[in-house]
């Protein structure tokens, strides 16, 4: 059995007559016609292919001109997409060909070789032999140069799509640390990562996904660290994606995740290049999708969703405490309302007497049972939250104040809810905002509703039943073959240094064990190297034992 699981896709069945109709329609599309055409070497014909098939598009432009080489007049054609190509660069190309051309030395080279090698002062020049290839090149914003009598065309990289500048990441802001975030352009994103990691081991592989959009998708990993099985699995899953369009990273995530029905995210996304690089150095694979300022990190485990890059930038004691607070907030957002319901409705004897009297006093005028009250209020809170996201920032702030303060106050005064309920709901909501990862926070926030219903039915017993179901699900979940709750279950004492607390950075000398990296040691420790406080580093990393019967030889305990 392979180490990492496999996904199955089934093709839908299409009846024969429908399939024929679809095929006929497909054969008439420009891309099918482009596929059927070939270059012949006649400028009129070759340009005609593009004129006929793509000529209906307003942004396709063809510039015909002549150049002179060895006293020979040659008809040329430059095909480019208006707006997508840089006019300046095209002007320079024309200048190079029409004005600066000066071939004094006689060579036996063919015409296109002379043009490419001696006339075009450009970095990115590529021969295109088939029409399909040329058309793809053209539609990516580049331009094509045709020479009369040459049975191919010269692709010139003049792509100039508009892109925004690198700005601060919106969703993952930090107090200390880098302010650079990914942008929509995949090339810039790769360069942002390269900037942070100058190792030749970083490997960037490109695929295209989407029959119509042909979106560039890049997966990066560090060779010698990432497990080959993992890389193979990522490659396989990307290959097996069958879709006509890929709109973004979140779209791709849904194709390659393990359990499509789980509320928990099994793939982490990040807007921060430093986080992506750190993930790669842990042995993970980073997937970039053109057009999305988010990178996908696989495999992802649960603990990653409450960690932030800032945890590693601050000193370890502070970082551990802040992480602890975040975990408490996470648990709050999941079980607080259901705990309240079960205490009020089923086990009031557990509350201290004075407080119980106060609660009873607050609830005296409320006509509903606790479960109905808190369920309604939590629902309203979710509506308010969703409403404020869609609104422009200026109005959003005002609305949240109106929502929380005015509605809450009015609801209490109207005897609709008790004051303590408002407190509980507020605590829950604030708790859910303390989770750094939006997608994980929303999973827990949604799961609190079934928990509330269970609490209303069975009290504490019901809450526990719900939590057990969630825990069982989490335990059975895997992300690209890695148990979702690792390094807690299965336990890894080195991984636990960076789970609930964050131990000092110098003490974390191993990469996460569950990733089965080829190089489990972050730092190679020499015999004479001393760690902090003069201890030999080998002491701090523990005893190295090889696991008998383990999947690979290099895996060390």
């Amino acid at each position, binding site marked *: *059995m392979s*180490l990492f699981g496999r996904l199955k896709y089934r093709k839908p069945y299409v009846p024969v007559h429908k399939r024929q109709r679809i095929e006929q329609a497909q054969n008439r599309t420009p891309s099918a016609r482009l596929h059927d055409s070939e270059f012949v070497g006649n400028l009129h014909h070759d340009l005609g292919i593009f004129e006929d098939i793509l000529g209906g598009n307003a942004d396709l432009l063809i510039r015909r001109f002549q150049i002179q080489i060895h006293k020979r007049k040659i008809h040329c054609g430059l095909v480019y997409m208006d707006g997508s190509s840089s006019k300046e660069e095209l002007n320079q190309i024309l200048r190079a060909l029409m004005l600066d051309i000066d071939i004094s030395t006689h060579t036996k080279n063919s015409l296109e070789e002379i043009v490419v090698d001696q006339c075009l002062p450009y970095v990115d020049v590529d021969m295109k032999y088939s029409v399909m290839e040329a058309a793809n090149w053209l539609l990516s914003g580049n331009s094509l140069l045709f020479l009369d009598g040459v049975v191919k065309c010269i692709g010139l990289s003049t792509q100039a799509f508009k892109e925004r500048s690198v700005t601060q990441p919106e969703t993952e802001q930090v107090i200390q640390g880098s302010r650079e975030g990914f942008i929509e352009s995949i090339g810039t994103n790769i360069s942002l990562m390269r900037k942070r990691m100058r190792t030749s081991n970083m490997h960037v592989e490109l695929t295209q996904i989407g029959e119509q959009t042909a979106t560039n998708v890049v997966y990066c990993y560090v060779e010698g660290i990432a497990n080959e099985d993992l890389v193979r699995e990522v490659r396989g899953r990307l290959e097996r994606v069958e879709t006509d369009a890929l709109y973004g990273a979140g779209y791709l995530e849904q194709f390659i995740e393990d359990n499509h029905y789980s509320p928990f995210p099994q793939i982490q996304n990040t807007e921060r290049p430093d986080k992506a690089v750190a993930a790669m150095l842990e042995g993970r694979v980073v997937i970039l999708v053109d057009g999305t300022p988010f990178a996908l990190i696989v495999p992802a485990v649960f603990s990653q969703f409450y960690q932030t890059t800032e945890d590693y930038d601050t000193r370890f004691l502070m970082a551990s405490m802040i992480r602890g607070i975040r975990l408490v907030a996470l648990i709050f957002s999941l079980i607080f309302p259901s705990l309240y319901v079960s205490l009020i409705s*089923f*086990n009031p*004897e*557990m*509350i*201290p*007497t004075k407080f119980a009297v106060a609660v009873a006093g607050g609830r005296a005028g409320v006509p509903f049972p606790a479960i109905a009250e808190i369920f309604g209020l939590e629902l309203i809170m979710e509506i308010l939250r969703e409403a404020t996201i869609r609104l422009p920032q200026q109005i959003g702030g005002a609305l949240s104040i109106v929502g929380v303060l005015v509605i809450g106050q009015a609801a209490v005064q109207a005897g609709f809810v008790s004051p303590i309920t408002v407190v509980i709901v507020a605590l829950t909501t604030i708790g859910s905002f303390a989770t750094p990862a939006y997608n994980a926070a929303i999973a827990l926030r949604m799961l609190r509703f079934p928990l509330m219903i269970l609490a209303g039915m*069975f*009290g*504490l*017993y019901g*809450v*526990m*039943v719900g939590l*057990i*179901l969630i*825990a*069982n699900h989490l*335990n*059975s979940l895997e992300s690209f073959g890695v*148990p979702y*709750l690792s390094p*807690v*279950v*299965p*336990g890894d004492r080195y991984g636990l240094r960076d789970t609930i607390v964050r131990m000092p950075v110098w003490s974390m000398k191993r990469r996460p064990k569950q990733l089965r990296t080829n190089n489990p040691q972050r730092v190679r420790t020499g015999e004479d190297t001393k760690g902090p406080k003069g201890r030999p580093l080998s002491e701090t990393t523990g005893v190295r034992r090889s*696991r*008998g*019967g*383990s*999947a690979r030889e290099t895996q060390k305990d």
Partner: protein
Amino acid sequence: MEKPKSVTATQLTMSIGTSIIGVGILAFPRITVEYVRTGAPMAAICAMLLMMCGGIVVAYLGNQYRERTIFEYADELVGQWIGRLLLVCIGAYFLELAALASREFGEVVVTSVLQRTPIEVTVFVMVLMATVACRSDIIVFARILTFYMPFVYFPALVIVVLSLKSAQSANLMPLLGMFYGQQVKSVFMSIMVVAALFTNYIIVGLIIPFMYQPTRAMRGTIVGIGIAGSLYIILMFSTLSVFGIEEMDNLLWPTMELAKTAALPTFYIERLDPIFIAVWVTAVFSAIFAAYYVAIQALSHVFRLKNHRGLSILALPIIMLLAKLPPNIVSLYHVIKQVGVSGLCLTLGYPLLLLIAHVIKTARVKSSI
């Protein structure tokens, strides 16, 4: 088929420790004290040692057949038909065990927390949870059991610590002459009753083929049974020292009464026992889950199924039926005692039989060389 290796020795230890602690934890001090009075802690120690022997046998056999579960290599050792017959017995026994445990916990819940809820509902909820969980494979099974270990042990130890203030050492006396003046039969029965709580240790035989290092299974098994046994012994001591033998006879669930005596005077919460009941749902669930899982695995091997998933749903109505059989709580405990003690012959005898078969077989192979 080669089995994926992903279970560590620590996981094995923790899984055993979790699966052994079940709903029996609530009532066993009373039952043991009925038999041997103050000899009860000693009975718990003896039971633990007895079951450790069983654990050693299973772990040893598992090391001899590293690629197969205990049910699979049994076919080779005792023959297919005897193996099947034994497996049917084991499957039936563990189904009954799961049913009785869910019924017992249903009674606990209905008596102490949800007085107005019909018992069928609470039993059904427990069984349903186990059914859903039983659809997972053995690796996930081990992971789930490992995960619940702190939730099972921590509250029990907290109770013990909090109730220490009302403990009286006089209640434990005579400490040394534990079985003095007891009939041999009742001493035997008391040990058997406690040992019956440990029957889930058989999961070792299921988990070993999925381990990285089967050689470490032996130590893991002994430590796992030891941890669970220590908890039983500690609870035995503390219930006995708090209540004494006279009062213990009147308490249906002494451990729960112990939780009621535990209190944190100045804190958010005035009473702790509802919380302990709630957290113990995990303990009960994990024990039922383990028993259910063993039963499903045994039965699916009887029918040579490739996948045990469907069987877990088929077993659901059977378990519900079995759980409904005892008419009241008195007869429930009667049945539990009988099934537990007779099942012990099965869970201890099965590995022992396999061991004998194995020894004979290897001896024959050696002599033929």
